């Protein structure tokens, strides 16, 4: 059998999948590119060619710039918090203690919940009239009156970040825990005999084992946080006063709320481009860590 025939057969076997992929990803993508150069509306007019008008308008407009900044802060803060809490939780769960396996299983729970359920749950917790957070803080004497956490522009984003963090830190913790278990016992024992205290041991001996897996978690979580939509849509819809309007929310509003398919498409393509940059960075990291080991 010639290698030529093997190649042909491989393509033939992959053909059904390729057709499906072209139909559901390729074609919409190409059509989005076409749309982005028009002033098409979601219903009615097909729109006419407007060149780069949409892109110029978006990139120079304050809506896009503000959404970009909001997205940036959401991604940076929530991912940073998740990494810190995740690693701390993993270190704790890596200790020997009674009930450890139960706690390990429990920890997965927030991550296993559908995002919409999680968002609804946190909306209840943040509720300005009967929310648990208000009750807890008031009873501890930290606030003197119930507040609308999601209703005020200066607390809404922080409240969202907290909710997102609660949902996603288990993923980081899980990855970190797996990495911790790969640290040979002899290495930890050797560092104890060598005289390393808890902090030195973590920094010089354990951290090198964590770095690679955590880097993967970091990039994955950053890409996801950058694309964030559902948790925000359920909790604040981008409000109040657009203070939680991230790029994905903006794309949705532009294309569907305002029914401007043309500029919605160009906005979506810009976001796609930004995420692609992150994805390429991810692929490069994976290649690098695969090469290292």
């Amino acid at each position, binding site marked *: 059998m010639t290698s030529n025939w093997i190649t042909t057969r491989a393509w033939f076997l992959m053909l059904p999948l390729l057709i499906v992929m072209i139909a559901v990803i390729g074609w919409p993508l190409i059509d989005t590119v076409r749309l982005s150069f028009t002033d098409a509306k979601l219903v009615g007019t097909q729109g006419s060619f407007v060149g780069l008008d949409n892109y110029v308008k978006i990139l120079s407009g304050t809506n896009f710039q503000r959404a970009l900044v909001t997205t940036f802060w959401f991604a940076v803060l929530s991912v940073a918090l998740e990494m810190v809490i995740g690693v701390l939780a993993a270190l704790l769960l890596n200790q020997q203690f009674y009930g450890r396996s139960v706690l390990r299983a429990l920890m997965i729970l927030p991550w296993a919940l559908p995002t919409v359920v999680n968002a609804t749950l946190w909306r209840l917790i943040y509720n300005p009239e009967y929310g648990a957070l208000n009750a807890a803080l008031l009873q501890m004497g930290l606030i003197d009156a119930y507040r609308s956490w999601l209703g005020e522009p200066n607390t809404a984003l922080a409240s969202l970040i907290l909710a997102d963090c609660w949902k996603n830190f288990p993923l980081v913790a899980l990855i970190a825990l797996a990495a911790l278990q790969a640290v*040979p016992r*002899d*290495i930890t*024992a*050797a*560092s*104890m*005999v*060598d*005289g*390393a*205290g808890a902090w*030195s041991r973590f920094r*010089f*001996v354990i951290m*090198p084992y964590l770095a690679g897996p955590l880097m993967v978690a970091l990039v994955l979580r950053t890409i996801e946080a950058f694309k964030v939509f559902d948790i925000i849509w359920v909790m604040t819809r981008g409000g109040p006063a657009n203070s939680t309007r991230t790029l994905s929310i903006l794309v949705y509003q532009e294309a569907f709320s305002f029914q401007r398919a043309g500029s919605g498409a160009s906005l979506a393509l810009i976001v796609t481009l930004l995420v692609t940059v992150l994805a390429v960075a991810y692929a490069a990291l994976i290649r690098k860590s695969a090469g290292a080991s």
Partner: protein
Amino acid sequence: MSALELVNIRKRYGTVETLKGIELSLASGEFLVLLGSSGCGKSTLLNIIAGLAEASEGDVRIGDRSVTGVHPKNRDIAMVFQSYALYPNMSVARNIGFGLEMRNVPAAERTEAVEKTARILQIENLLGRKPSELSGGQRQRVAIGRALVRDPQIFLFDEPLSNLDAKLRMEMRTELKRLHQMLGTTIVYVTHDQIEAMTLATRIAVMRDGQIEQLATPDEIYNRPATRYVASFVGSPPMNMLDATVGNGVAHIDGSLSGILLPHDVQERAGKARNVIIGIRPESLSLVSGDGKGLTIDAKVEVVELTGPELVVTSTIGSQRLTASLPPRSTVTVGTPQRFSIDASALHVFDQATEKRM
């Protein structure tokens, strides 16, 4: 002053007792080998000395100071692990110097100590490399260097050579012996390899089921084993153990017509014991020449194996097996009866009931 003293060390996991009251005292400069099969508790004992595990009962004293409850780093010990346990992200130099770094030794002093250690171990040219760029033998040297550089009171070795191939293992064994002779350090060394134990130790503690079966010099362990277990554990091929019945000072080997006249001192110690085990090292047997006077034993030759330096002959006496190590050019025919003569001075007799030496 003893360098290390173990007082009634016990270790329990739930209801299982893995160490049953270990008593041991080690003088400075001794090379003690803890020898035993896996699960005998030797590694647990080493970890208790290191402080990586806590004894359920008893006391560990290093240099006349009780270290029970003291953190490993404050015990003035260094340890070499079976897996070498080198820090993969650090260079060889930093691996060796890490213990000093953690003890806040100034950088200049540290570098000097690391270089001196590297010279002793002949790894100066490797100092800039990472552990992943080293061979097994080189990693072993670095692991030893990491212990050496700290100049501790006691060195602990946990089966350090078992991950090396046979040739390298022999080389490193000699190297360890050289280091011990040169530096005069006190060493506790865990292994299941009797050759390592015999060649390295100044004293061997043969362990079994969480107890020390015999604590003695290699010579005594080999030539005067205290129990049947010690006798069969040390030596290759292992000692022949023949069940026998004593009557009138003669041990009649089960399944054999011939009897072995026991030496007088053994006769006395045997007293009224009837059932004994006669232990004969394979190299204490030789082919009968001439008139065949002295102690002899008849057996039927079953298998003949030439290992190179010796001819290992396995024969049977009734249902019992007799192995002899003979000079390689000996003429032995498989399937025929053969008379062996026994070196009477190398005869071991154990009580069948207690398995203790008589």
